[in-house]
């Protein structure tokens, strides 16, 4: 499968990184998100909020990369929260059950409040 890159805007915000992927998160582009999460895991404060507002479409690969990120960050003593207002993505979290136990909120700040205590 040919890999494609999507732009991921990374910003630092009070003790955590905010990742803003811009474009579809699917099997072709998910490598970019995986790499971006991977580089944060190696840092001192592995806490990430992924903002999905600029992601029009996300399939099971995109969802898998997010959930894989949750697991890897928690193992490293950090966490991953999700900022999302898109109905389509929220429904995916609800259907799969991934919404339980992961901080999902409409804004980055609210999502960050739900980080698990390390």
């Amino acid at each position, binding site marked *: *499968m040919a890999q494609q890159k999507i732009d991921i805007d990374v910003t630092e915000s009070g003790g955590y990184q905010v990742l803003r992927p811009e474009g579809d998160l699917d099997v072709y582009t998910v490598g970019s998100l995986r790499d971006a999460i991977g580089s944060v895991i190696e840092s001192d404060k592995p806490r990430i909020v992924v903002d999905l507002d600029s992601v029009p*479409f996300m399939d099971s690969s995109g969802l*898998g990369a997010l959930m894989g990120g949750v*697991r890897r960050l928690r193992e490293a003593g950090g966490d991953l929260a999700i900022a999302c207002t898109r109905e*389509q993505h929220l429904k995916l979290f609800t259907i799969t*059950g*991934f919404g339980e136990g992961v901080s999902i909120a409409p804004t980055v700040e609210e999502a960050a409040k739900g980080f698990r205590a390390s």
Partner: protein
Amino acid sequence: MRVSLRLKIVGGFGSLLVLMALLGWVTLSLFSSVRIVQEEVFDDAIPGLVAVDEIVRSYTAQSAAVRGALIGNPPILLAQYRSEVDTARFWQERSEELFTSGEERELLAQLIEAGTSFQTLVDERVIPLVSQSGQRSQAFRIIGQDGTALISEIERIGALLRDSQREVMIQSEADVRNNTNRTIIILVIVLVAALALAVFLTVFLPGRLVGNLGKLVEAARAIGRGDFDQKIEVHSRDEVGELGTRMGEMQQGLKRLQQLALHDRELEIAASIQRNLLQRELPEVPAARLVPLQRQANLVGGDWYDVDVYAGTMTIAVGDASGKGIAAALMATVALSALRGERARGGSTKRVVGAANQALLDVTDPESFTTLIYVSLELSSGQARWMNMGHHVPFVLCAPRGTDPRRGYYLEGPRNRVLGWFDDPGLAENIVDLSPGDRLVLFTDGFLEAKSPEGEVFGEHRLAEAFIKLGSLDPEAFGDELVAHVERFAAGKLDDDLTMLVVEYRGTDLASGEADERSGDD
């Protein structure tokens, strides 16, 4: 910097032409300098020498003729004297043309002056005494004293003039020698340069070109044999070097293609295994009709279904492994094997689904998961117990009632979480009672996530509308039309698998079978 082959050849031969022109110019300049020296020596110096000799000789002869005339036979000797006077004048006039430098002209003037003084002495003081016999001794004395002194002066000046002409000749000889030496050095340099250039053009350049082309030919042969690892080393900054670089890229591209072809072959094998595992013949029972539909975007995929009938119960599973390709196919295989194994041991729905979850947890990475709908349909009653593991809910298309259009709804109920990620995904069950003629439609997310060229997804609402609209068709046509409908929406570009299993419950009595026939004719 890139130097083109054309530039090398044109530059090389151009330089050779310039060297040849230089050679011609040096040769011509040598001839020209020799000619100048020749003119200086033969046209000026030698005639000058002759003229001076003749002038000195004519004065000496004049002196001798006059002395002879004083002794006897005067008319002849006087005539000889006159003749020598004319000779001296002729050579003096000629000398004025030949001698051009200041020093020479001064010496010539002194010579002419001394000559004129001698002739004046002879004409005015000696010749008048020739015819007077008593005066001859007086005449001898005059010519012996004053005349001899003037002749000596003439000879001295003549010697000086001769020396100056000899110097001109010596200088000219030195010029010729120097010019010749310089010319020889230039000729040697030009010849060596021309020779080196000629060697480059005739030996080195073609040799290098042929050598590089030979390497390219060898590499092309190796590629022809299927060997893509031969290194192409062409070190040249011209078109041949460029060709070598491009050929190297082509070689790598072909190698990649070969790897892809091998990969495709492996995929074909995997696809064959998956087909054997998934698409075996479905069980046929009178109480339920099963119509599967699978359209894979790739050779292998993560969508799967499985149906079994045992002791009056039909179990139906539709699963979807996350991701695509081989990884998803392997996950599907793991889930299916665990599920079949536990079911064969007579396990309950919870045990079967739990076993699939554990098997997936053991083998998959934290990014992979599988969603599943698992249904146990009691064939005698139509009661279906179903479990939803993070999957989209099924759709129930109700049996037709008279001429009313079919009704249908998404089968909502308690949800559990996906398989292969949670230690405890939850195993809550739901129950639905199917009436004869009802259709239970199980499907994977490929239908919902089909995208239009504008990026809009097909979604639950459009799918429900399509189910109802196409519900009057028999189950096979229903599936085909539905796929066609989704493909039209996506403008033919579907990049996810589409899997659907339509379960039409017919009931166990004959009447329900007839109801089914009617629904098929609608």
